[in-house]
Each structure stands twice: as C-alpha cells, then as structure tokens.
C-alpha cells in the first residue's frame, strides 16, 4: 500500500493505516525533535504530541501528498511548546568551560562539538527549527517557509541570524580556548 492510500485511510479513521504511517515516520519525527530540543525526553514528548495531533487532525489535511511536510510542521510546533515550557528551567544552565589546553586539530572537532552544543542552545526554538530543517533535512528555504507557515523572507532571516550567531559564539569560544593559535 502506498503512502497516499495509507494517509487517505488513516484520515478516514483507519487506525492500522495510521499505525503504519507512525511506524514509518516516527524516527524522522524524533530526529527532528531531538535536534531542535537537544533533550531525549522532551524530544520523545514532542514526537508523541505531534503524532497524536496528526491522528486527530489528519481529516483536515487537504493535500495528502504533503503529509510528511505537514507532519514536520506538527513536530516543530510541538517542539516550540516543549521549549517554551522549559525556557526558565534551561536558563539555569551555564556554558561549559572549554579547557585552555585543547589542541588545535583534530581536537578542534571536539571543541567544535561542545561549542556548537552551547551555541545552539542559545538560539531560539524558531531559529533552531530553521537550522535543522535546512542543514539536516536539506529543505530549501521555500519549503521551510511552507512547513512553518512563515514568509520565505522570515525563514531566510532566521537562518541567517542563527548561523551568524553560531559562528560568532564559536569564534569567541575558539579564541578563548586557543589564545596561542590566535596570535600565531
């Protein structure tokens, strides 16, 4: 049975068809949610919330060929809700100090990962969503705008400022981690 049939049957209340869809898409939903939220439990909650919302709202989906993009939108919005609920809690976290004796390369990769993690945590959920959809899922900006229900210009702006902020933070972290290299 192809995707269109599954979506159509699920939209008409066929739980088995929806179970097939959920099985097929849950990992992609979770991957998206984790990358936005950076937390396994909250990513799982957002994934469940999105899939349950998909079951509930599937009859209202007009263009069933766009099921995956529509599902991604539900995941992103579930992530927004999760992120807003934990903003104050997250604010207690401090940036991990990076050891000054980190070697340049290839240890730079390790520094990068920790620094990226910290830098990414400083982005808004809306910025993170655009970065993940673009740099991980490979969606073009027009598609991202469609998925998120925002103008293309807004998507472009969010991506630009998010990447600029990531680079700025990484630059600062790298400079403080390897002062000797900076002067070399």
């Amino acid at each position, binding site marked *: 049975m192809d995707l269109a049939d599954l979506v159509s049957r699920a939209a008409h209340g066929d*739980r088995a068809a929806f179970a097939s869809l959920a099985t097929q898409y849950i990992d992609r939903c979770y991957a998206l949610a984790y990358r936005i939220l950076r937390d396994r439990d909250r990513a*799982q909650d957002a994934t469940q919330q999105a899939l*349950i919302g998909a079951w*509930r709202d599937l009859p209202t989906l*007009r263009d069933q060929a766009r099921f995956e993009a529509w599902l991604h939108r*539900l995941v992103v919005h579930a992530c927004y809700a999760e992120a807003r609920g934990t903003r104050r809690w997250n604010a207690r976290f401090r940036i991990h100090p990076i050891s000054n004796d980190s070697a340049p390369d290839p240890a730079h990769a390790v520094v990068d990962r920790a620094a990226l993690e910290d830098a990414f945590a400083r982005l808004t959920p809306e910025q993170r969503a655009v970065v*993940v959809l673009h*740099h991980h899922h490979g969606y073009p900006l027009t598609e991202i705008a469609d998925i998120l229900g925002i103008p293309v210009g807004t998507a472009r702006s969010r991506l630009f400022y998010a990447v600029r902020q990531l680079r700025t933070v*990484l630059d600062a972290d790298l400079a403080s981690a390897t002062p000797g290299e900076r002067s070399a």
Partner: protein
Amino acid sequence: MTRFDDPQFDPRLADWLEGDPSTAPDQALEIVLASLPSIKQRRATRVPWRNRDMTNTLRLGLAAAVVVAATLGGLYFLSSRTGPSVAAPETSPPPQSAPPSAAQPSAAANRTTFTSAQYGYSVEYPTPYAAVPATEPWTGSGQIGPEEPFVDRFFAPNSTTFVGISALPRPEGTTDEAFEMQYMQHVSERGGCPIPMDAWSDATVRDTPAKRAEFECGGSQGVELIWVAGDTGYVISGDPAVVDLMAETIAVE
C-alpha cells in the same frame, strides 16, 4: 581564521547535526498507538472554493454566483428595511430559495438566533446551519473545536464548515489585556493549529476592543476573535466569512 569566512562551517554544522540520535525510543510508538482509541479525529473543515483541484472556469462560475446572490440579497435586504420606496425586483427570489451554502452567507441569508444556555450570550447564525450547544463549562484548557463539549458549535449543512464560540470567566484581578494575552499565549502553544503571537491584531466586536487572528489549519483558513465583556472572555473561531458574520450579531448579557 575567523569562521565568518570559513567555507567549511556549513558542512561542519551538518556533520554535527548528523551525529545526534535519530531513532525514537520504542515506547514512543507504543504510547502513540495506545492513545488512538481515546482520541477523536476532527471533522474536515474544507471550504469548497479553496479546493486546489477546482478549475478556473468553476472558480469564476462560483464567484459570479456569489456576486449575483449577494446583489439580489442586498436588494432584498434594502427593500425589507426601507419599505416600498426601494422595491426589490419582482424577479428576485426570496433569500430562503437560494441553495443553503455555508460558504455563501450574505446579508439576505435567513438567520436564526441562538441563545447560549451555558454562557448567556445570543448570536445570529445562518439558518441552514445546525447549532449544537455546549454541555459543560470551559475550564480554559483545550481549544475551540468541533468535538469539544465546552463549545457552542455551528455546523454547515455539508459539515465542511464550522464555527465555535466559548467563554471563560476572567480571573479576579486580571485585566482584560492580560486575560487576552494569556489566551493568545495559550493558543500559540497548542498542539493543533497554533496561532503565533504576532498573528494577532486589534479589532472590535460590537464596538468592544478585541483581538483577531487569521490562521491556517490543515490547509483551510480560519479566524479567531477574543474579547472581554464584563467579567467574561469570549472566543469565536472557525470559517472566516461566517465568524465575521456572526461576530456582528453577538450580544452578551
């Protein structure tokens, strides 16, 4: 080297994202599937003229029909208000003879007055619609939807268009603006069809300041209005044309 001119930055970012976990825990799927029997699916709220498969000819035909119906209806409406000096054309069909269509409400459409036993307001709705009164008070959770028992619901004959109204006492000590802000925050975070905070704009409902937002839900357009009258906050949500029509007639106690 500054990373602003580092061409490897984007691939590095992609690599970093690639390294994150990509497999959902087994219990996530189990929880979702176990939840399905207890969750009712929403009704489709599709608007016929927004069907992407509709041909231009059909679209133009429907638009012309709407214009004709509105013109005839307007004439009938004027004649009924101003008496014989502005006579409706003898060939004008009475409004009730027009095919009942949720998508074509006009000033001439017959209206029925609904008085909410749950919330006390009254409102006029297009007569072809079916009114389903709320059976329990709204506690503030959930959202205006066709399956919610705390919502006074109005369904088009073809069941493709829906409008819902509900109300909630404003907490003591809360200003109207704070109450509206809380609601807007609530709907911006809801799981289905959220409305971003920046989508709201100032509006009025029967001269009362209100907030109005247009949103998309499953490919259909919707409008939501919130306002406070007395000590009660009211919300009306659903098909844009019918929401605006009904909001013009709503009267609170």
